[in-house]
């Protein structure tokens, strides 16, 4: 008799355990969905966790307005196909309503603006648990984060005051106004994610695969030319074969040169690459050594 789970089954079981635990113990959970591969996996796991019953909580997209059109199309199709309920918390709406002000200048990023919009949506919908697709291998501040990550009434993370997490006994107790961020795929690596996408035949937006795109080099990354992002005079636009390793705000997510058009080729490429996913492609994490830690403390994902 085989009695040892494969690593992928182990990770899947662990994630489903976490998702069910949250659904059972929290009153108003929601699942953060960006259309990126990690949140696609969390949604897939959540659907499995309750099948054949529908998802017992809504999904929420914090929309910076700076999107890849194919990702939004993908999001809407996924919502329709899975019969989920989608809540969009819009950064653009918040700017238009004068609730937040956008930094000016061609290099202003909207990433930071997601935090107040997210926190307001949490308050408005009185969410007490939010699933996210963060993984500990992504970034060094994340490596220290718990599966149940406690946030105070200001949405802040206190890395030094985290609750110990023992066995699979998660403690989600909190006071009104406080909430938890829940990371069911904490223990997955980028490669685990791709293996799972392949094994489960899960569809992801096409921008994860090699395609031709007008790009220009900024801060060592290939950024795509979009309606929200135009190159400076001295930045040269080239048409290159690229793909994205992460999908975030289109203005700060870089692409990598790649000819990987199938999932197997992507797996091969990820297995051979020597640069971390965020290091390669995220301007938001490059501004300082502790950029992610600082954003997280304020309430970022």
């Amino acid at each position: 008799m085989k009695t040892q789970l494969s690593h992928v089954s182990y990770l899947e079981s662990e994630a489903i355990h976490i998702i069910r635990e949250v659904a059972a113990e929290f009153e108003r959970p929601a699942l953060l969905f960006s259309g990126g591969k990690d949140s696609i996996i969390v949604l897939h796991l959540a659907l499995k966790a309750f099948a054949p019953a529908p998802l017992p909580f809504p999904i929420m997209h914090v929309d910076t307005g700076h999107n890849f059109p194919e990702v939004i199309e993908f999001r809407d199709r996924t919502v329709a196909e899975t019969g989920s309920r989608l809540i969009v918390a819009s950064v653009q709406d918040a700017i238009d309503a004068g609730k937040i002000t956008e930094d000016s200048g061609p290099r202003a990023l909207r990433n930071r603006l997601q935090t107040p919009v997210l926190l307001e949506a949490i308050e408005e919908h009185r969410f007490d648990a939010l699933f996210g697709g963060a993984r500990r291998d992504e970034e060094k501040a994340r490596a220290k984060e718990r599966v149940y990550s406690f946030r105070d009434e200001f949405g802040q993370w206190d890395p030094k005051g985290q609750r110990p997490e023992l066995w699979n006994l998660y403690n989600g107790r909190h006071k009104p106004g406080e909430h938890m961020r829940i990371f069911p795929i904490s223990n997955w690596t980028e490669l685990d994610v791709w293996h799972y996408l392949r094994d489960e035949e899960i569809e992801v937006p096409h921008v994860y695969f090699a395609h031709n795109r007008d790009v220009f080099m900024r801060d060592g990354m290939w950024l795509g030319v979009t309606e929200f992002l135009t190159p400076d005079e001295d930045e040269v636009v080239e048409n290159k074969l690229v793909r994205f390793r992460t999908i975030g705000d289109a203005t700060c997510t870089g692409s990598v040169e790649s000819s990987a058009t199938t999932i197997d080729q992507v797996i091969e490429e990820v297995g051979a690459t020597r640069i971390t996913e965020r290091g390669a492609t995220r301007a938001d994490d490059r501004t300082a050594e502790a950029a992610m830690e600082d954003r997280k403390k304020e309430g970022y994902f």
Partner: protein
Amino acid sequence: MDLLRLATAGSVDDGKSTLIGRLLYDSKSIFEDQLESIEKTSNDRGDEHVNLALLTDGLRAEREQGITIDVAHRYFTTPRRKFIIGDTPGHIQYTRNMVTGASTADLAIILIDARKGVIEQSRRHAFIASLLRIPHLVVAVNKMDLVDYDQEVFESVRKEFAEFATRLDVPDLTFIPVSALHGDNIVDRSATMDWYRGATLLHHLEEVHIASDRNMVDPRFPVQYVIRPQSKQHHDFRGYAGTIAGGVMKPGDEIAALPSGFTSKIKAVLSPDGSELSEAYAPMSVTVLLEDELDVSRGDMICRVNNQPDVTQDLEAMVCWMSEASQLTVGSKLAIKHTTRWARAVVKDFRYRLDINTLSRDEGATALSLNEIGRVRLRTTQPLFADTYRRNRTTGSFILVDEATNVTVGAGMIRATE
């Protein structure tokens, strides 16, 4: 490919971070941008060589102070296995952090500085590993380069540690002489220590047999969530979702549901993709369908008719106290979480506090403070369905939560239920 979770322990400067950095580096799990960033930090700090230890320092305060504050998780994969390292710092808060890391570990690596030999902290680490019943223990005798790779030194550490370990319950104990700095016996065999015939550390990690570590004898299924679609198509579907905590479950098994004691048979065990499994075991997440309609809800336990856990409100347990703000003493009232069940607990009796360096019992003690471990008797408001921790690490463990702050303040291992 399977997965091995490991915990590392060592006192400050024994070379734990270097060892982990070496494992990650030699197994090609470190990326260039991470390396560049630690090279830069090493230069800025005026370190002589690239400090692999920096790889494990995730928070700003840690990099600034050059210490590790919190449990960090690291991942690496070899063609044989995937590994999750729960890396716990060796200084303040040590016991609390190591207990946390140890709770999910299949294997612990204890580092010993060859020059210092077995010190008080080594004994403490070994004790915690055995208390948490980590099935496999590896003692890495590090900095062998600083003792001329001398076999005598290694043998004397081995002898002393093994002697101490006989007083503990350590099922599998392995000693490996290494130099984390130079890479001897970590991934590659040491060229200088030809007297050592055993496996390198990585080879041992890849080969150690973990399939029989979990309880495969006593079927235990704490119900986590009841799935009732209430749609036309699945009108009669009533599935009990949860994670198997012990034993093997298969269709046709005669089961009893606690606390009601009602019996039925397993109709099907469904995997997460909805397919019917011929059998399932821990720690699989599954959905169980029963032949009869019973009233079973979250917090209940499905087990075999002829193999049941104890149904009890009285627990004898070892507790590690994790709060600096309070103490555990007779009369303390706390929330308790055991499997999928919450209850309240009160400390009825304080048996003893353990001196984790000497293993002696202080029976005159009346309370546990931060990082202290002792034995208490608890009474709970509701019955729990419990086994001893020795028998099952899942149904034998619990956490204690402060009801005012909601913080997890204690980790408990059940010694007896009566």
